[in-house]
């Protein structure tokens, strides 16, 4: 059965696949690649934040671990396949360590522990210069060429990213609809009841963390291939905050939300950086504005604010006629 929803999805995929054709310019194709790779990252974090109710502020650490692991193996002269596999394994192991420690607690405790763990990764990347090259970072000289197709061009890289992105969306859809996804939402809403029903709440959260870590690692690899460079800046708290902003600005616990959020944040960052050097300031102000005025997320929030403003405007325009009706008669 074909519903309008299917039509919309088909149209979106069609638009994404033909994007390099109708965009043309390399600069914009690269921005589209950036949006897609950060969308993968945001989708991964959303597993924990949206569906698990576990807010992590250390995901930039996992993202950077994948990036550094891949970059280091490549630097040692090994192939791309070995580097990618190694990076994913290391990221999964790191996710397991993060999860075991952070899941000692939930709520604020979870958040603070992940923050501290993320800072450890940053500290290692920054201070352990003999391995990570410190602030100078590591260059990734080549992009992979799967099946003889070089990804060094903007459009081929875009297609590779799109493929990974679609795979991520697909697995997320399956995950959300699976019994496991339902049980994760159960641990978010009613942890005690889930325990009473015989579910192992800890294990569900642990596996969700690994799932999130896996896609974070994939996103981290895409990132080093896109940028061809990694430095401690990637692991900084700003990185974790940015991806969290992507998740909450689009609306948590939805599939489309983090994707829209990634698009908003990446576009905003590129536009802002073109004019002023104050990205952190803008990021902070956006956080404060979202929390204070549109707690439901940037997209639904702006719609509501616009509607509210429009109604005010209209009420003022024909105010004389409208007002007496609203006021209760004495």
């Amino acid at each position: 059965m074909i519903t309008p929803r299917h039509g919309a999805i088909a149209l979106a995929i069609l638009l994404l696949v033909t994007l390099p054709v109708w965009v043309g310019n390399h600069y914009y194709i690269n921005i589209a690649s950036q949006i897609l790779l950060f969308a993968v990252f945001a989708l991964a974090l959303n597993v924990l934040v949206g569906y698990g109710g576990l807010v992590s502020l250390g995901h930039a650490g996992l993202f950077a671990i994948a990036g550094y692991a891949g970059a280091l193996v490549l630097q040692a002269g090994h192939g791309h396949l070995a580097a990618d596999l190694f990076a994913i394994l290391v990221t999964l192991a790191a996710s397991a360590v993060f999860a075991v420690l952070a899941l000692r607690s939930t709520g604020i405790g979870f958040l603070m522990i992940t923050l501290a763990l993320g800072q450890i990764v940053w500290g290692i990347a920054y201070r352990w210069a003999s391995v990570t090259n410190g602030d100078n970072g590591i260059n990734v000289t080549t992009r992979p060429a799967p099946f003889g197709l070089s990804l060094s061009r903007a459009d081929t890289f875009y297609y590779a990213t799109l493929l990974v992105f679609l795979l991520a969306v697909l697995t997320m859809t399956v995950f959300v609809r699976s019994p496991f996804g339902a049980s994760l939402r159960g641990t978010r809403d009613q942890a005690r009841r889930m325990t009473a029903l015989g579910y192992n709440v800890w294990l569900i959260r642990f596996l969700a963390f690994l799932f999130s870590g896996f896609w974070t690692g994939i996103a981290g690899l895409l990132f080093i291939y896109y940028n061809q460079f990694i430095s401690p800046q990637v692991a900084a708290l700003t990185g974790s905050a940015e991806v969290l902003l992507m998740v909450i600005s689009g609306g948590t616990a939805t599939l489309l939300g983090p994707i829209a959020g990634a698009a908003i944040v990446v576009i905003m960052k590129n536009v802002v950086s073109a004019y002023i050097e104050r990205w952190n300031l803008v990021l902070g102000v956006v956080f404060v504005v979202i929390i204070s005025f549109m707690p439901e997320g940037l997209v639904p929030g702006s719609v509501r604010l616009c509607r509210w403003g429009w109604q005010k405007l209209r009420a003022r325009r024909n105010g004389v006629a409208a007002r007496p009706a609203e006021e209760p008669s004495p």
Partner: protein
Amino acid sequence: MSVWVLLAVNSIALGGLLFLLSAGFSLIFGLMRIPNLMHGSFFMLGAYFGVTFLDKGLNFWLAALLSGLAMAVIGGVIERLLLRRLEGQVLPQVLLTLGFAFIIGDLCLMIWTGDPWQPATPRHLAGAVQAFGIFFPLFRLVIVGVAVVVAIALWLMVDWTRLGAMIRAGVDDPPIARVVGIKVSRLFTLVFCLGAALAAFAGVMGAPYLSVYPGLDFEMLPLALIVVILGGTGSLLGALVGSFLIGFLYNFGQAMFPDLAYVILFLPMLLVLVLRPQGLFGRVVA
């Protein structure tokens, strides 16, 4: 031999500084359960205020007090106008305080530029004291002394005064505390201001020793965090012990394993989390 003694003195001094920083964090995060991610920013902004006052020729202690006062006002305004509306909502509180941390960090970079500021140690606190045939830098001892005084004052306040009893009552059971006539909301604002002021005061005390530079905020925040997690949330004694533990680990780690000093710092926190999640001196919350 004397190298180790000097290292130990430095460790104690850093511990004192960390206590000043994390005592406020312990009040705000441990007692009031507000995940205040701007605490490092309070420290840094306070330090910048301090160096500016010192630059104007103010007395060191006056500069530290004024900076604390200014930060109390800023913290109070943020708490009263924004944080208060998010009572009990962890994620929005985190995002709001994180947002302000970024704003404060970037504003500091704009105003005080990216160069580090290191005020000279005040003249009457410079120099060294000789004891047991070893010279100890006076200023570091002063930091420890101030930390001990603050620790005792806070302990007396929280555990032995009417105000402290009201704060504890407000934390344990806000509705009942309100019923018996305690203005919990006003009290919490007061505690938040106190925590912010302590962080700023610590920033000024630390300025001649650590210097002030961009990024100091997010370097100090995790330190306050590990001290509080280590010591147990809400426990001042825990914060004190945790501070000195971290002070020692930091200095000795830096001397012995310079590459991994930052990691060593977090090891006790991880150990405590695994073995004793409520922290060394934390209460088990039912």
